[in-house]
C-alpha cells in the first residue's frame, strides 16, 4: 500500500481532523492524510450504491473493446468519446458521456470468482468467504460506524435499500439485526411509492391510531408479564416502527414533491425514480443507500436486453450525477456503480444463448463519483479482449477501503466479531485477502 508523503503541519492536522477520535491517533493520521488535505471537498457523508444485480457486462458499458472484433464487442462496435479526452464508453451511454468529468472508471476490478453468491459476498464485504461467520456488507459497516452509535438521528434508518432485498449480502452479517437495512419494497415509478410498511394507500391516520390502540387492548401477554425485558425490546421496535408510520416518513418517499420535469429527466421507470428517491434520502442524511438494479444477468440475448436497459441506466445515472452536483451534494456523496462481476468477453452466439454472456470475475469495471473521489480518471486497464487485468489490479477490498477512507472510517477500527477474533473495518494483509492498494490515484 503506497502512501503519499504527508506534509501537513500539526495545526493543519488538527484543523482538518473533522473526525478526530481521542486516543486513536491512527484515525487522525488516516483522515488527514495528504490526499484528503489536498482535496478541498472535505469528507463524504453518504454513499449511493448502484448495484448491478446479476453482473453487468463491462465490455458493453465502461470498457468497450471494438478492436477485439465482433465476437467480443458484438453489435456495440462504435464506442463514443466522453467529455474527458481519451475516455470512451459504450455508444448507448451518451448522457453519461457528457458527465465523465464527474466520475472515474476502474477497469481493472478483479476477484476471479464466477458464482453469483460468492462474487456478491466478495464485492459487498471485501472479504473472501472462509471465516466461520459471515461478514457485514459495506452498508452495514457504514451504518455501524456512522449510524446510531455515531449519533445518527435521522428518521429513516441509516442504511436503506431501494427497492428489493438483495438477500443476506446487503445484510449485517455478524453485526446483527440492528445493522440490517430498511428495504423499501414498492415501486417508486408508481404513485404513491408504496414503501413497505411506511406508506399504505387507503388507510387513514385515524385508522392507524385506532388499530394501534386495538392491538394494545388485546395484548394480554404483555399485561400478564409487564416486566419482561424481551417484551420491552419488542415494544421498543414497535415504537420505532410507528414513528415512521405516523411520522413524516412517508413524506420523504413522496416523489410527487419533485417537479415533473425533474422526474421525467430521471426517467419514469423503477430505476430512474429510485435514483431520485436516493437523492432525497441523501438530503435526509441517510448514510448508505443501495439501489438494487435488477436484470443484468444476461446469459441470453445480451444485446437485445442491453439496448433496452442501457438507455434507462444512462438517463437516470447521468441525471443523478447532475442533480447531486447542482445541489452541491456530490462533494459529500459517493456514487458507486458495480455488480458482483463482469460478463464473459467472448460472446456465446450459439443457442440457447443467442448472443449471451456468462459470468466473468477475472476482469470487470466499477465506477465511482463524488465524495472526494476525483472525476475524469481511468484506473487500471484490462487486456485487449477485456479478459484479464492488464495493469493495476483493484480488488474489492481496495475499493471498499477507499470508500471508507472518504467516509472517514478508520480502516483499523475493530468490528465486533462474535468469536472474539480481531477484525478491522478494512481487511488487512494478515487476513490473506488479495489486495492491490487503496485508490490513491483518484482520492
Amino acid at each position: 500500500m503506497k502512501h503519499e508523503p504527508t506534509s501537513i503541519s500539526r495545526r493543519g492536522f488538527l484543523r482538518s481532523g473533522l473526525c478526530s477520535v481521542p486516543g486513536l491517533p491512527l484515525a487522525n493520521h488516516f483522515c488527514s492524510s495528504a490526499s484528503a488535505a489536498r482535496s478541498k471537498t472535505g469528507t463524504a457523508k453518504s454513499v449511493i450504491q448502484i448495484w448491478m444485480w446479476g453482473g453487468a457486462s463491462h465490455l458493453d458499458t465502461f470498457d468497450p473493446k471494438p478492436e477485439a472484433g465482433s465476437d467480443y464487442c458484438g453489435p456495440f462496435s462504435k464506442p463514443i468519446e466522453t467529455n474527458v479526452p481519451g475516455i470512451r464508453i459504450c455508444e448507448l451511454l451518451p448522457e453519461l458521456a457528457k458527465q465523465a468529468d464527474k466520475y472515474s472508471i476502474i477497469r481493472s476490478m478483479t476477484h476471479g470468482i464466477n458464482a453469483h453468491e460468492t462474487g456478491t459476498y466478495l464485492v459487498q464485504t471485501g472479504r473472501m468467504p472462509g471465516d466461520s461467520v459471515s461478514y457485514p456488507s459495506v452498508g452495514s459497516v457504514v451504518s455501524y460506524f456512522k449510524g446510531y452509535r455515531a449519533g445518527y438521528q435521522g428518521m429513516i434508518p441509516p442504511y436503506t435499500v431501494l427497492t428489493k432485498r438483495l438477500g443476506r449480502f446487503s445484510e449485517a452479517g455478524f453485526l446483527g439485526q440492528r445493522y440490517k437495512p430498511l428495504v423499501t419494497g414498492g415501486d417508486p415509478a408508481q404513485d404513491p411509492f408504496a414503501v413497505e410498511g411506511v406508506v399504505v394507500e387507503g388507510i387513514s391516520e385515524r385508522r392507524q391510531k385506532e388499530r394501534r390502540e386495538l392491538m394494545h387492548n388485546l395484548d394480554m401477554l404483555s399485561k400478564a408479564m409487564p416486566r419482561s425485558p424481551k417484551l420491552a425490546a419488542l415494544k421498543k421496535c414497535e415504537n420505532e416502527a410507528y414513528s415512521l408510520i405516523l411520522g413524516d416518513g412517508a413524506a420523504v418517499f413522496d416523489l410527487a414533491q419533485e417537479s415533473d420535469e425533474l422526474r421525467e429527466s430521471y426517467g419514469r421507470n423503477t430505476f430512474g425514480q429510485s435514483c431520485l428517491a436516493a437523492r432525497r434520502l441523501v438530503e435526509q442524511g441517510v448514510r448508505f443507500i443501495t439501489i438494487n438494479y435488477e436484470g443484468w444477468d444476461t446469459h441470453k440475448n445480451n444485446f437485445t436486453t442491453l439496448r433496452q436497459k442501457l438507455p434507462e441506466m444512462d438517463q437516470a445515472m447521468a441525471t443523478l450525477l447532475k442533480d447531486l452536483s447542482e445541489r452541491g451534494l456530490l462533494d459529500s456523496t459517493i456514487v458507486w456503480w458495480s455488480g458482483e462481476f463482469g460478463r464473459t468477453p467472448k460472446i456465446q452466439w450459439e443457442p440457447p444463448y443467442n448472443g449471451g454472456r456468462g459470468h466473468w470475475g477475472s476482469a470487470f469495471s466499477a465506477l465511482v463519483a463524488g465524495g472526494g473521489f476525483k472525476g475524469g480518471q481511468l484506473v487500471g486497464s484490462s487486456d485487449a479482449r477485456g479478459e484479464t487485468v492488464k495493469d493495476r489490479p483493484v480488488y474489492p477490498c481496495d475499493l471498499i477501503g477507499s470508500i471508507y477512507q472518504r467516509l472517514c472510517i478508520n480502516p483499523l477500527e475493530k468490528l465486533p466479531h462474535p468469536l472474539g477474533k480481531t477484525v478491522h473495518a478494512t481487511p488487512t494483509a494478515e487476513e490473506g485477502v488479495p489486495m492491490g492498494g487503496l485508490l490513491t490515484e483518484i482520492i
Partner: protein
Amino acid sequence: MSRPSVIHCVLLSTLLLSLSHLGFADEPSVTIQKVSGNRMLIALFESNSHVSRACRVDEPILAKLESLDIRAAATCSDSVFVRRVYLDVIGTLPTAEEVKGFLEDRNINKRRLLIDRLLERDKFADYWAMKWCDLLRVRSEFPINLWPNAVQAYHRWIRDSIRQNKPYDQFVRELLTANGSNFRNPEVNFYRAVRDNKPETIAAAVALTFMGTRADAWPSKRLSEMAVFFEGIQRKSTAEWKEEIVFVNLLDASIESAGGRPTSASFPDGTRVDLLPMVDHRQVFADWLVRAENPWFTGSIVNRVWYWLLGIGIIHEPDDIRRSNPPSNRELLSLLQCELVKSEYDIKHLFRLILNSATYQRSCIPTTDRPEAERNFAHYPIRRLDAEVLIDAICRITGTSETYKSLIPEPWTFIPGDQPSIALPDASITSPFLELFGRPARDTGFELERNNAPTAEQMLHLLNSSHLLDKLESRWNPQTSATSPRFGRRVRRSVAAPQSAQADVTDVYLSLLSRYPTSHELEVIRKYTSEAEAQGNEAMVDLMLSLINTPEFLYRH
C-alpha cells in the same frame, strides 16, 4: 408481581373458564370486567384444572430451584399447551378444529396423547430436518457449493432419517463414514458442506456439529491431532453435471511418497490410538465418538434437544461446550444422557420425556424477576417464532401462499404453492420475509446464526406492509382475490348477522391464538366494530392484524 392465593385462583379460573366459553353471548358479562385484570390474565395462561406431575426430569430442576429459593411457575393452560407443543414439535400452528378438539377432550392423558400424535406427523420430520439442515449447512451455494441436485438429495436423506427415527449414533456414523456419489449416497454431502477439504476444517465441523464444541477455542494441537482421522478424503467429478464422488483413497501413492499415512493419532480426549494401514480412519474416529461413555457425544445432543425445546441450553450456548462453560444443572444433563443411551439413541424418546415433564409444561409467566429463574427453567421462556414458522402460520390463517426464489438457477426446482417454508430443502431458496425475520443463511452451523431478535423493520412489516395486508384482505375480501372463498362467504353473511360475526371472532381467536376470546376481549372488539373507522370486513382485517402483532401470536409462550 402480586399473585392471588391458590384457592382464590382455582375458583376464579373455573369461573372464568365457564364464562369465557359463554362469553360470546350477546351481552358480555359486566362482572367479568370488574374482576382484577391481573387474575383474569393469569387464568388465560395458567391452568389449575391440570397440574403436570413432576417426573424424574423435573427432580433435579426442582432441587436446584429450591436451593436458589425460586418458585417454579404454574402449569400452563390447555390452550397455551396445545399451541406451544404444536409450534415446538412440528413448527406449525394448530388449526381451529385441532384446538377445539383438544380443549374439549376430557381424557386426563390428553397432553401425553397429543405429544405422541405430533411426534408421528410428517411435519415433525419436515421441521426437524429444517433444524438439522441449519446445522449441516444445507444450501446450494456459498460459502460451500453443494449445488441444487445434491441439496435435494441430502435434505431428503436427512428428513427420511428423522422420519424413521434413525438411532442418533447410527445417523452420525453414517454421515462420518460415508463414501460415494453426492447424488446417490447423499450423506457424503457432510464432507462437501465444509468450506474446504482440509482435514482441520472437517475436524472443526465435526467437533461443532457432533461434539457441540468450538475448535477455535481448542489448543491447536488437539485440532491437528483430530484432523489426522480426516486425512486423505478425496473428491472426483463424474460425467454428470456437478456429481462428485467422495472417498478415502487408501492406496494414494502421493501420500505414501510424502512419508506415508500416519500410524497413530490422538482423540480429542487425549487417548492415543494406533492407525492401521488399509483402514478408513474415519471409522476409528466414529467408533470413539459414538460411544455411550463419550460425554461430548451424548452430552452435546441431549443438551441440543433441551435447548431446542426449552430455549436455553443446560450448557448455553449449546454449541459452546467447554470446561469454563459448565452446565447449569449437571444432574439433569447426566439423567438425559443416561436416558439417551438406555433408549439406544432414540431421539423421540428424549422429546417425549422432555415434553411430558412439568418443566416443559410450565407457564411463561415468571414468579420472580431474578435472571437465574429463566436460566434454571423455573418458567417457559418466551421466544419469537422462527421466520419459517411465522410465515407458515400467517399463510395458514389467511389461506394464502408465498413465492420462494433461488438465485442458483439449475436444475429448476418446482415448489408447490402450498409448500410450507419449514419444508424448503435449500437455504438458497428464500423470500424477502424469511430474510427479514432472521432465517439462518446456513453459513456456519452455529446455533446463533438463527436470530429471532425483533427489529423495527420487522415490526414495520408486520404492522403496515402491503405484503401482510394483501394476505389479510384476501381472506376477508374474496372479491379482490381468488383465494379462500370459504372465509369470504362467511364474512358476507356476517355483515347481515351479528351472531355469525361473533363466530368469526371466535374462529379468528382459535386459529390465531389457539384459544377462545374472553368476554373482555369480545367487548373491546364489539366497541371497535361499532365505533372505529374500519367497518365490516375492514374491522376484521384490523382485528387479525392486531392479533398478529401481539406477542401472544409472535412468541412461543
